[in-house]
Protein backbone atom coordinates (compact mmCIF):
# COMPACT_ATOMS: atom_id res chain seq x y z
CA UNK A 1 0.00 0.00 0.00
CA UNK A 2 2.82 2.33 0.92
CA UNK A 3 4.54 1.35 -2.28
CA UNK A 4 1.39 2.20 -4.19
CA UNK A 5 1.22 5.71 -2.77
CA UNK A 6 4.93 6.30 -3.42
CA UNK A 7 4.64 5.06 -6.97
CA UNK A 8 1.60 7.17 -7.68
CA UNK A 9 3.45 10.20 -6.42
CA UNK A 10 6.48 9.32 -8.47
CA UNK A 11 4.58 8.68 -11.69
CA UNK A 12 1.87 11.30 -11.29
CA UNK A 13 3.57 13.75 -13.64
CA UNK A 14 3.96 11.00 -16.15
CA UNK A 15 0.34 9.92 -15.94
CA UNK A 16 -0.91 13.44 -16.53
CA UNK A 17 1.48 14.13 -19.37
CA UNK A 18 0.77 10.83 -21.06
CA UNK A 19 -2.98 11.36 -20.72
CA UNK A 20 -2.70 14.79 -22.26
CA UNK A 21 -0.51 13.55 -25.07
CA UNK A 22 -2.85 10.68 -25.88
CA UNK A 23 -5.93 12.85 -25.85
CA UNK A 24 -4.19 15.29 -28.12
CA UNK A 25 -3.19 12.68 -30.66
CA UNK A 26 -6.56 10.98 -30.55
CA UNK A 27 -8.21 14.28 -31.25
CA UNK A 28 -5.73 15.40 -33.87
CA UNK A 29 -5.51 12.03 -35.55
CA UNK A 30 -9.15 11.83 -36.53
CA UNK A 31 -10.47 14.20 -39.12
CA UNK A 32 -13.34 15.51 -37.10
CA UNK A 33 -11.19 15.88 -33.99
CA UNK A 34 -13.13 17.41 -31.14
CA UNK A 35 -16.41 16.86 -32.90
CA UNK A 36 -15.97 13.12 -32.55
CA UNK A 37 -16.04 13.36 -28.79
CA UNK A 38 -19.52 14.79 -29.07
CA UNK A 39 -20.70 13.09 -32.21
CA UNK A 40 -20.15 9.54 -31.04
CA UNK A 41 -22.40 9.56 -27.95
CA UNK A 42 -24.85 11.75 -29.81
CA UNK A 43 -25.27 9.24 -32.61
CA UNK A 44 -25.69 6.35 -30.22
CA UNK A 45 -28.24 8.33 -28.31
CA UNK A 46 -30.21 8.86 -31.51
CA UNK A 47 -30.02 5.16 -32.35
CA UNK A 48 -31.23 4.00 -28.95
CA UNK A 49 -33.84 6.70 -28.75
CA UNK A 50 -35.18 5.55 -32.06
CA UNK A 51 -35.01 1.90 -31.09
CA UNK A 52 -36.54 2.09 -27.65
CA UNK A 53 -38.58 5.24 -27.89
CA UNK A 54 -40.17 4.65 -31.28
CA UNK A 55 -39.90 0.94 -32.04
CA UNK A 56 -40.68 -0.30 -28.54
CA UNK A 57 -42.70 2.74 -27.54
CA UNK A 58 -40.99 3.64 -24.29
CA UNK A 59 -42.80 6.22 -22.17
CA UNK A 60 -39.87 7.25 -20.00
CA UNK A 61 -39.69 10.95 -19.27
CA UNK A 62 -36.93 12.97 -21.00
CA UNK A 63 -36.02 9.83 -22.89
CA UNK A 64 -33.12 11.17 -25.00
CA UNK A 65 -31.48 12.65 -21.91
CA UNK A 66 -32.17 9.41 -20.07
CA UNK A 67 -30.30 7.44 -22.73
CA UNK A 68 -27.53 9.95 -22.97
CA UNK A 69 -26.84 9.98 -19.23
CA UNK A 70 -26.74 6.18 -19.21
CA UNK A 71 -24.36 6.08 -22.14
CA UNK A 72 -21.98 8.55 -20.54
CA UNK A 73 -21.33 6.32 -17.54
CA UNK A 74 -21.50 3.10 -19.52
CA UNK A 75 -19.00 4.22 -22.15
CA UNK A 76 -16.52 5.14 -19.50
CA UNK A 77 -16.74 1.70 -17.93
CA UNK A 78 -16.94 -0.17 -21.20
CA UNK A 79 -14.02 1.55 -22.90
CA UNK A 80 -11.76 1.32 -19.90
CA UNK A 81 -12.42 -2.34 -19.22
CA UNK A 82 -12.12 -3.43 -22.83
CA UNK A 83 -8.89 -1.44 -23.25
CA UNK A 84 -7.46 -2.90 -20.06
CA UNK A 85 -7.37 -6.43 -21.44
CA UNK A 86 -4.74 -5.60 -24.02
CA UNK A 87 -3.15 -2.63 -22.39
CA UNK A 88 0.23 -4.23 -21.67
CA UNK A 89 0.53 -5.26 -25.31
CA UNK A 90 -0.45 -1.79 -26.39
CA UNK A 91 2.42 -0.26 -24.47
CA UNK A 92 4.84 -2.98 -25.44
CA UNK A 93 7.46 -0.46 -26.49
CA UNK A 94 7.58 1.04 -23.04
CA UNK A 95 7.10 -2.09 -21.03
CA UNK A 96 10.03 -3.89 -22.62
CA UNK A 97 12.38 -0.97 -22.14
CA UNK A 98 11.80 0.56 -18.77
CA UNK A 99 10.21 -0.34 -15.50
CA UNK A 100 6.87 1.23 -14.84
CA UNK A 101 4.20 -0.04 -12.45
CA UNK A 102 1.81 -1.51 -14.96
CA UNK A 103 -1.36 -0.08 -13.47
CA UNK A 104 0.06 3.34 -14.30
CA UNK A 105 -0.73 2.53 -17.92
CA UNK A 106 -4.24 1.59 -16.90
CA UNK A 107 -4.65 4.86 -15.04
CA UNK A 108 -3.69 6.75 -18.18
CA UNK A 109 -6.46 4.98 -20.10
CA UNK A 110 -8.86 5.61 -17.27
CA UNK A 111 -8.07 9.31 -17.29
CA UNK A 112 -8.41 9.55 -21.05
CA UNK A 113 -11.86 7.99 -20.84
CA UNK A 114 -12.72 10.07 -17.82
CA UNK A 115 -11.97 13.19 -19.76
CA UNK A 116 -14.20 12.01 -22.57
CA UNK A 117 -16.92 11.36 -20.03
CA UNK A 118 -16.57 14.93 -18.76
CA UNK A 119 -17.05 16.23 -22.28
CA UNK A 120 -20.20 14.13 -22.53
CA UNK A 121 -21.39 15.57 -19.23
CA UNK A 122 -21.00 19.04 -20.66
CA UNK A 123 -23.30 18.04 -23.47
CA UNK A 124 -25.63 16.43 -20.99
CA UNK A 125 -26.06 19.77 -19.23
CA UNK A 126 -26.96 21.39 -22.53
CA UNK A 127 -29.58 18.71 -23.10
CA UNK A 128 -31.02 19.16 -19.65
CA UNK A 129 -31.45 22.83 -20.24
CA UNK A 130 -32.97 22.13 -23.62
CA UNK A 131 -35.49 19.64 -22.21
CA UNK A 132 -36.11 21.89 -19.21
CA UNK A 133 -35.36 19.15 -16.66
CA UNK A 134 -36.24 20.41 -13.17
CA UNK A 135 -33.38 20.29 -10.70
CA UNK A 136 -33.22 19.51 -7.02
CA UNK A 137 -30.57 19.02 -4.37
CA UNK A 138 -30.61 15.34 -5.23
CA UNK A 139 -28.41 16.24 -8.17
CA UNK A 140 -25.50 16.24 -5.74
CA UNK A 141 -25.74 12.43 -5.68
CA UNK A 142 -24.09 12.58 -9.06
CA UNK A 143 -20.68 13.13 -7.48
CA UNK A 144 -20.48 10.10 -5.21
CA UNK A 145 -21.90 8.03 -8.07
CA UNK A 146 -19.15 9.19 -10.41
CA UNK A 147 -16.50 8.54 -7.78
CA UNK A 148 -17.90 5.08 -7.18
CA UNK A 149 -17.96 4.37 -10.93
CA UNK A 150 -14.32 5.34 -11.24
CA UNK A 151 -13.29 3.07 -8.39
CA UNK A 152 -15.34 0.10 -9.58
CA UNK A 153 -14.04 0.60 -13.11
CA UNK A 154 -10.45 0.70 -11.92
CA UNK A 155 -10.90 -2.37 -9.76
CA UNK A 156 -12.46 -4.44 -12.51
CA UNK A 157 -9.98 -3.25 -15.14
CA UNK A 158 -6.92 -3.91 -13.01
CA UNK A 159 -7.91 -7.54 -12.67
CA UNK A 160 -8.76 -7.90 -16.35
CA UNK A 161 -5.48 -6.27 -17.23
CA UNK A 162 -3.56 -8.91 -15.33
CA UNK A 163 -5.33 -11.86 -16.94
CA UNK A 164 -5.31 -10.19 -20.34
CA UNK A 165 -1.55 -10.60 -20.43
CA UNK A 166 -1.75 -14.36 -20.09
CA UNK A 167 -4.94 -15.29 -21.83
CA UNK A 168 -5.09 -14.66 -25.51
CA UNK A 169 -8.79 -14.70 -26.18
CA UNK A 170 -9.83 -12.81 -23.11
CA UNK A 171 -10.40 -9.96 -25.54
CA UNK A 172 -13.26 -11.87 -27.15
CA UNK A 173 -14.65 -13.04 -23.86
CA UNK A 174 -14.66 -9.54 -22.44
CA UNK A 175 -16.36 -8.21 -25.54
CA UNK A 176 -19.18 -10.72 -25.09
CA UNK A 177 -19.39 -10.16 -21.36
CA UNK A 178 -19.54 -6.41 -21.78
CA UNK A 179 -22.24 -6.63 -24.42
CA UNK A 180 -24.26 -8.83 -22.11
CA UNK A 181 -23.77 -6.40 -19.29
CA UNK A 182 -24.75 -3.53 -21.54
CA UNK A 183 -28.20 -5.01 -22.09
CA UNK A 184 -28.54 -5.76 -18.41
CA UNK A 185 -27.63 -2.25 -17.35
CA UNK A 186 -30.75 -0.54 -18.59
CA UNK A 187 -29.00 2.00 -20.76
CA UNK A 188 -32.07 2.45 -22.94
CA UNK A 189 -34.82 1.18 -20.71
CA UNK A 190 -35.90 1.72 -17.16
CA UNK A 191 -35.02 -1.42 -15.23
CA UNK A 192 -37.41 -0.88 -12.35
CA UNK A 193 -40.35 -0.35 -14.72
CA UNK A 194 -39.58 -2.81 -17.52
CA UNK A 195 -38.12 -5.78 -15.71
CA UNK A 196 -40.65 -7.73 -13.59
CA UNK A 197 -40.09 -7.96 -9.85
CA UNK A 198 -38.12 -9.41 -8.14
CA UNK A 199 -35.59 -9.56 -11.00
CA UNK A 200 -35.42 -5.80 -11.33
CA UNK A 201 -34.26 -5.37 -7.75
CA UNK A 202 -31.76 -8.18 -8.07
CA UNK A 203 -30.38 -6.59 -11.20
CA UNK A 204 -30.20 -3.18 -9.60
CA UNK A 205 -28.31 -4.50 -6.61
CA UNK A 206 -25.98 -6.98 -8.25
CA UNK A 207 -25.02 -5.24 -11.45
CA UNK A 208 -22.93 -2.26 -10.38
CA UNK A 209 -23.41 -0.49 -13.68
CA UNK A 210 -27.19 -0.87 -13.58
CA UNK A 211 -27.20 0.48 -10.06
CA UNK A 212 -24.82 3.35 -10.72
CA UNK A 213 -26.52 4.41 -13.92
CA UNK A 214 -29.95 4.31 -12.35
CA UNK A 215 -28.82 6.27 -9.31
CA UNK A 216 -27.06 8.76 -11.53
CA UNK A 217 -30.19 9.34 -13.55
CA UNK A 218 -32.47 9.44 -10.55
CA UNK A 219 -30.47 12.26 -9.03
CA UNK A 220 -29.97 14.09 -12.26
CA UNK A 221 -33.38 13.85 -13.90
CA UNK A 222 -35.98 12.67 -11.47
CA UNK A 223 -35.01 14.40 -8.23
CA UNK A 224 -34.69 11.14 -6.35
CA UNK A 225 -32.10 10.25 -3.75
CA UNK A 226 -29.77 7.27 -3.77
CA UNK A 227 -29.78 4.01 -1.90
CA UNK A 228 -26.91 4.88 0.37
CA UNK A 229 -26.30 1.38 1.62
CA UNK A 230 -25.95 -0.17 -1.85
CA UNK A 231 -23.81 2.73 -3.00
CA UNK A 232 -21.57 2.25 0.00
CA UNK A 233 -21.33 -1.50 -0.58
CA UNK A 234 -20.28 -1.02 -4.20
CA UNK A 235 -17.83 1.59 -3.07
CA UNK A 236 -16.24 -0.93 -0.71
CA UNK A 237 -16.31 -3.70 -3.31
CA UNK A 238 -14.65 -1.34 -5.78
CA UNK A 239 -11.87 -0.61 -3.32
CA UNK A 240 -11.38 -4.28 -2.51
CA UNK A 241 -11.18 -5.14 -6.20
CA UNK A 242 -8.65 -2.36 -6.72
CA UNK A 243 -6.50 -3.60 -3.86
CA UNK A 244 -6.60 -7.16 -5.18
CA UNK A 245 -5.78 -5.87 -8.66
CA UNK A 246 -2.87 -3.74 -7.55
CA UNK A 247 -1.48 -6.50 -5.36
CA UNK A 248 -1.66 -9.02 -8.19
CA UNK A 249 -0.06 -6.60 -10.61
CA UNK A 250 2.79 -5.85 -8.23
CA UNK A 251 3.36 -9.51 -7.68
CA UNK A 252 3.39 -10.59 -11.31
CA UNK A 253 4.18 -7.52 -13.38
CA UNK A 254 7.80 -8.42 -13.92
CA UNK A 255 6.81 -11.64 -15.59
CA UNK A 256 4.56 -9.79 -18.06
CA UNK A 257 7.51 -8.94 -20.26
CA UNK A 258 8.65 -12.53 -20.41
CA UNK A 259 5.24 -13.54 -21.67
CA UNK A 260 5.08 -10.69 -24.14
CA UNK A 261 8.26 -11.92 -25.72
CA UNK A 262 6.69 -14.76 -27.62
Amino acid sequence: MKRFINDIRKYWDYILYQTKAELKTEIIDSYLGWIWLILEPLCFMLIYTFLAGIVFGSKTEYFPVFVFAGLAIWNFFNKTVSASVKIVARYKDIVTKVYVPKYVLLLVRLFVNFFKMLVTFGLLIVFMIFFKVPLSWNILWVFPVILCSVIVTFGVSSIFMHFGVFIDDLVNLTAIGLKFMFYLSGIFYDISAKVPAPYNNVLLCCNPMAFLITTFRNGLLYSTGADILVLFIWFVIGIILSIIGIRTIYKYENTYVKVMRG
Partner: protein
Amino acid sequence: MKKKREIAITIEDLHIYYKDIKRFSIKKNGLSGLNATTFKAVKGISFEIEKGEIVGICGKNGSGKSTTLRAIAGIFSPDHGKIDLHGNSISLLSIGVGFQRSLTGYENIFLSGMLLGFKRKDIEKKVDEIIEFSELGNAVYKPVRSYSSGMYSKLAFAITAILETDIMLIDEVFSVGDIKFKEKSYNKMKELINDENRTVIIVSHSSKALRELCNRVIWLHDGQIKEIGPADEVVTHYEKFMMEEA
Protein backbone atom coordinates in the same frame (compact mmCIF):
# COMPACT_ATOMS: atom_id res chain seq x y z
CA MET B 1 42.19 1.51 -8.05
CA LYS B 2 44.01 3.16 -5.19
CA LYS B 3 41.42 3.15 -2.48
CA LYS B 4 38.40 1.02 -1.93
CA ARG B 5 35.53 2.61 -3.78
CA GLU B 6 31.82 2.61 -3.38
CA ILE B 7 29.94 -0.30 -4.86
CA ALA B 8 27.23 0.70 -7.34
CA ILE B 9 25.75 -2.63 -8.36
CA THR B 10 25.80 -5.92 -6.57
CA ILE B 11 24.50 -9.02 -8.26
CA GLU B 12 24.31 -12.21 -6.33
CA ASP B 13 23.62 -15.57 -7.84
CA LEU B 14 21.22 -14.25 -10.46
CA HIS B 15 18.97 -16.75 -12.19
CA ILE B 16 16.43 -15.86 -14.82
CA TYR B 17 14.15 -18.39 -16.40
CA TYR B 18 11.75 -18.03 -19.22
CA LYS B 19 9.03 -20.26 -18.02
CA ASP B 20 7.62 -20.26 -21.48
CA ILE B 21 4.24 -19.38 -20.10
CA LYS B 22 2.97 -18.78 -23.57
CA ARG B 23 -0.02 -16.62 -23.81
CA PHE B 24 -2.50 -19.39 -23.98
CA SER B 25 -5.76 -19.30 -25.70
CA ILE B 26 -8.82 -20.96 -24.25
CA LYS B 27 -9.97 -21.65 -27.76
CA LYS B 28 -6.85 -23.61 -28.58
CA ASN B 29 -5.99 -25.30 -25.34
CA GLY B 30 -9.24 -25.70 -23.53
CA LEU B 31 -8.54 -25.21 -19.88
CA SER B 32 -5.72 -27.72 -19.86
CA GLY B 33 -3.64 -25.16 -18.02
CA LEU B 34 -0.10 -24.03 -18.33
CA ASN B 35 2.33 -26.65 -19.38
CA ALA B 36 5.46 -24.75 -18.63
CA THR B 37 8.77 -25.73 -20.08
CA THR B 38 11.52 -23.83 -18.42
CA PHE B 39 14.27 -22.22 -20.37
CA LYS B 40 17.16 -21.00 -18.28
CA ALA B 41 18.57 -17.81 -19.74
CA VAL B 42 20.81 -16.80 -16.89
CA LYS B 43 22.14 -19.39 -14.49
CA GLY B 44 23.65 -18.02 -11.37
CA ILE B 45 25.90 -15.11 -12.13
CA SER B 46 27.35 -12.89 -9.43
CA PHE B 47 29.48 -9.80 -9.72
CA GLU B 48 29.98 -6.40 -8.20
CA ILE B 49 30.55 -3.18 -10.03
CA GLU B 50 32.18 -0.20 -8.42
CA LYS B 51 30.94 3.30 -8.80
CA GLY B 52 32.47 4.97 -11.83
CA GLU B 53 33.50 1.74 -13.40
CA ILE B 54 32.84 0.86 -17.02
CA VAL B 55 32.11 -2.75 -17.53
CA GLY B 56 31.57 -4.50 -20.80
CA ILE B 57 29.60 -7.66 -21.32
CA CYS B 58 30.41 -9.88 -24.24
CA GLY B 59 29.29 -13.29 -25.31
CA LYS B 60 27.72 -14.90 -28.31
CA ASN B 61 24.07 -14.59 -29.20
CA GLY B 62 21.75 -16.11 -26.66
CA SER B 63 24.25 -16.15 -23.87
CA GLY B 64 22.02 -14.05 -21.65
CA LYS B 65 23.58 -10.62 -22.11
CA SER B 66 20.46 -8.64 -22.83
CA THR B 67 18.47 -10.58 -20.30
CA THR B 68 20.97 -9.67 -17.62
CA LEU B 69 20.82 -6.01 -18.60
CA ARG B 70 17.07 -5.99 -18.50
CA ALA B 71 17.05 -7.62 -15.13
CA ILE B 72 19.40 -4.95 -13.82
CA ALA B 73 17.12 -2.30 -15.30
CA GLY B 74 14.22 -3.78 -13.35
CA ILE B 75 12.20 -4.95 -16.32
CA PHE B 76 12.49 -8.62 -15.45
CA SER B 77 12.32 -9.94 -11.99
CA PRO B 78 15.05 -12.40 -11.11
CA ASP B 79 13.73 -15.88 -10.45
CA HIS B 80 16.43 -16.41 -7.95
CA GLY B 81 19.18 -14.26 -6.52
CA LYS B 82 19.47 -10.58 -5.81
CA ILE B 83 20.18 -7.35 -7.61
CA ASP B 84 21.09 -4.38 -5.48
CA LEU B 85 21.52 -1.01 -7.10
CA HIS B 86 22.34 0.76 -3.83
CA GLY B 87 19.77 3.44 -4.57
CA ASN B 88 21.22 4.62 -7.86
CA SER B 89 19.04 5.78 -10.72
CA ILE B 90 19.32 3.68 -13.80
CA SER B 91 18.53 3.85 -17.49
CA LEU B 92 18.64 1.28 -20.21
CA LEU B 93 19.68 2.45 -23.61
CA SER B 94 19.02 0.03 -26.37
CA ILE B 95 18.12 0.21 -29.99
CA GLY B 96 14.73 1.86 -30.25
CA VAL B 97 14.10 2.90 -26.70
CA GLY B 98 10.43 2.74 -25.87
CA PHE B 99 8.83 5.44 -27.88
CA GLN B 100 5.18 5.71 -28.56
CA ARG B 101 4.81 5.90 -32.25
CA SER B 102 1.74 8.05 -32.47
CA LEU B 103 3.14 10.77 -30.23
CA THR B 104 5.60 13.43 -31.30
CA GLY B 105 9.31 13.25 -30.56
CA TYR B 106 8.96 16.21 -28.25
CA GLU B 107 6.33 14.49 -26.18
CA ASN B 108 8.36 11.34 -26.18
CA ILE B 109 11.32 13.19 -24.73
CA PHE B 110 9.21 14.18 -21.77
CA LEU B 111 7.55 10.81 -21.40
CA SER B 112 10.79 8.86 -21.58
CA GLY B 113 12.41 11.27 -19.19
CA MET B 114 9.60 10.95 -16.69
CA LEU B 115 9.70 7.19 -16.94
CA LEU B 116 13.38 7.35 -16.13
CA GLY B 117 12.35 9.18 -12.99
CA PHE B 118 13.13 12.77 -13.88
CA LYS B 119 10.92 15.63 -12.84
CA ARG B 120 9.20 17.62 -15.49
CA LYS B 121 11.13 20.76 -14.60
CA ASP B 122 14.48 19.02 -15.03
CA ILE B 123 13.50 17.81 -18.46
CA GLU B 124 12.28 21.24 -19.49
CA LYS B 125 15.73 22.60 -18.72
CA LYS B 126 17.42 20.05 -20.92
CA VAL B 127 14.95 19.59 -23.71
CA ASP B 128 16.68 22.05 -26.05
CA GLU B 129 19.99 20.35 -25.54
CA ILE B 130 18.43 17.00 -26.34
CA ILE B 131 16.82 18.26 -29.53
CA GLU B 132 20.09 19.84 -30.59
CA PHE B 133 22.10 16.73 -29.95
CA SER B 134 19.61 14.53 -31.73
CA GLU B 135 19.95 16.67 -34.89
CA LEU B 136 16.25 16.30 -35.51
CA GLY B 137 15.43 19.99 -35.82
CA ASN B 138 11.78 20.59 -36.49
CA ALA B 139 11.05 16.93 -37.03
CA VAL B 140 10.90 16.62 -33.29
CA TYR B 141 7.38 18.03 -33.43
CA LYS B 142 6.25 15.29 -35.79
CA PRO B 143 4.94 11.90 -34.68
CA VAL B 144 7.66 9.36 -34.06
CA ARG B 145 6.07 6.92 -36.50
CA SER B 146 7.14 9.20 -39.34
CA TYR B 147 10.81 8.91 -38.33
CA SER B 148 13.41 6.88 -40.12
CA SER B 149 15.14 4.27 -38.02
CA GLY B 150 18.19 6.49 -37.84
CA MET B 151 16.25 9.45 -36.51
CA TYR B 152 14.58 7.16 -34.04
CA SER B 153 17.84 5.92 -32.63
CA LYS B 154 19.36 9.36 -32.60
CA LEU B 155 16.56 10.65 -30.46
CA ALA B 156 16.79 7.66 -28.17
CA PHE B 157 20.50 8.15 -27.79
CA ALA B 158 20.17 11.87 -27.18
CA ILE B 159 17.65 11.37 -24.40
CA THR B 160 19.74 8.91 -22.48
CA ALA B 161 22.96 10.77 -23.11
CA ILE B 162 21.74 14.16 -21.96
CA LEU B 163 19.46 13.12 -19.14
CA GLU B 164 22.13 11.67 -16.97
CA THR B 165 21.41 8.79 -14.68
CA ASP B 166 23.84 7.31 -12.18
CA ILE B 167 24.00 4.01 -13.97
CA MET B 168 23.75 3.64 -17.72
CA LEU B 169 23.09 0.33 -19.34
CA ILE B 170 23.95 0.31 -23.00
CA ASP B 171 22.81 -2.42 -25.30
CA GLU B 172 24.49 -2.40 -28.70
CA VAL B 173 24.05 1.20 -29.69
CA PHE B 174 27.23 1.89 -31.49
CA SER B 175 25.54 1.30 -34.77
CA VAL B 176 23.27 4.29 -34.45
CA GLY B 177 22.67 6.65 -37.35
CA ASP B 178 25.06 7.66 -40.10
CA ILE B 179 28.84 7.75 -39.82
CA LYS B 180 28.86 11.29 -38.57
CA PHE B 181 26.40 10.62 -35.81
CA LYS B 182 28.13 7.40 -34.94
CA GLU B 183 31.31 9.30 -34.38
CA LYS B 184 29.52 11.93 -32.37
CA SER B 185 27.73 9.42 -30.18
CA TYR B 186 30.90 7.46 -29.67
CA ASN B 187 32.65 10.59 -28.49
CA LYS B 188 29.75 11.59 -26.31
CA MET B 189 29.83 8.12 -24.88
CA LYS B 190 33.48 8.51 -24.04
CA GLU B 191 32.79 11.84 -22.43
CA LEU B 192 29.95 10.43 -20.37
CA ILE B 193 32.00 7.49 -19.39
CA ASN B 194 34.87 9.62 -18.21
CA ASP B 195 32.64 11.12 -15.59
CA GLU B 196 33.98 9.74 -12.33
CA ASN B 197 30.57 9.19 -10.86
CA ARG B 198 28.90 7.36 -13.65
CA THR B 199 28.73 3.62 -13.74
CA VAL B 200 28.27 2.09 -17.14
CA ILE B 201 27.56 -1.39 -18.39
CA ILE B 202 27.98 -1.94 -22.09
CA VAL B 203 26.80 -4.91 -24.05
CA SER B 204 28.56 -5.06 -27.36
CA HIS B 205 29.89 -7.35 -30.02
CA SER B 206 32.45 -4.80 -31.04
CA SER B 207 35.84 -5.76 -29.65
CA LYS B 208 37.14 -2.32 -30.46
CA ALA B 209 34.50 -0.58 -28.36
CA LEU B 210 34.97 -2.97 -25.49
CA ARG B 211 38.73 -2.56 -25.49
CA GLU B 212 38.66 1.21 -25.77
CA LEU B 213 35.86 2.01 -23.39
CA CYS B 214 35.82 -0.58 -20.67
CA ASN B 215 37.90 -1.18 -17.58
CA ARG B 216 36.65 -4.68 -17.13
CA VAL B 217 34.80 -7.14 -19.28
CA ILE B 218 32.50 -9.95 -18.28
CA TRP B 219 32.28 -12.81 -20.71
CA LEU B 220 29.00 -14.61 -20.51
CA HIS B 221 28.64 -18.06 -21.93
CA ASP B 222 25.44 -20.04 -21.79
CA GLY B 223 24.05 -17.99 -18.93
CA GLN B 224 27.15 -18.23 -16.83
CA ILE B 225 30.24 -16.17 -16.34
CA LYS B 226 33.08 -17.71 -18.28
CA GLU B 227 35.60 -15.08 -17.50
CA ILE B 228 35.76 -11.73 -15.77
CA GLY B 229 38.74 -9.47 -15.74
CA PRO B 230 40.67 -6.64 -17.45
CA ALA B 231 39.12 -5.70 -20.78
CA ASP B 232 42.07 -6.51 -23.02
CA GLU B 233 42.64 -9.93 -21.60
CA VAL B 234 39.05 -11.11 -21.65
CA VAL B 235 38.34 -9.75 -25.12
CA THR B 236 41.41 -11.49 -26.48
CA HIS B 237 40.31 -14.80 -25.02
CA TYR B 238 36.81 -14.25 -26.26
CA GLU B 239 37.95 -13.51 -29.79
CA LYS B 240 40.14 -16.57 -29.81
CA PHE B 241 37.28 -18.69 -28.57
CA MET B 242 34.90 -17.39 -31.20
CA MET B 243 37.47 -17.97 -33.96
CA GLU B 244 37.93 -21.56 -32.88
CA GLU B 245 34.24 -22.17 -32.78
CA ALA B 246 33.68 -20.78 -36.24
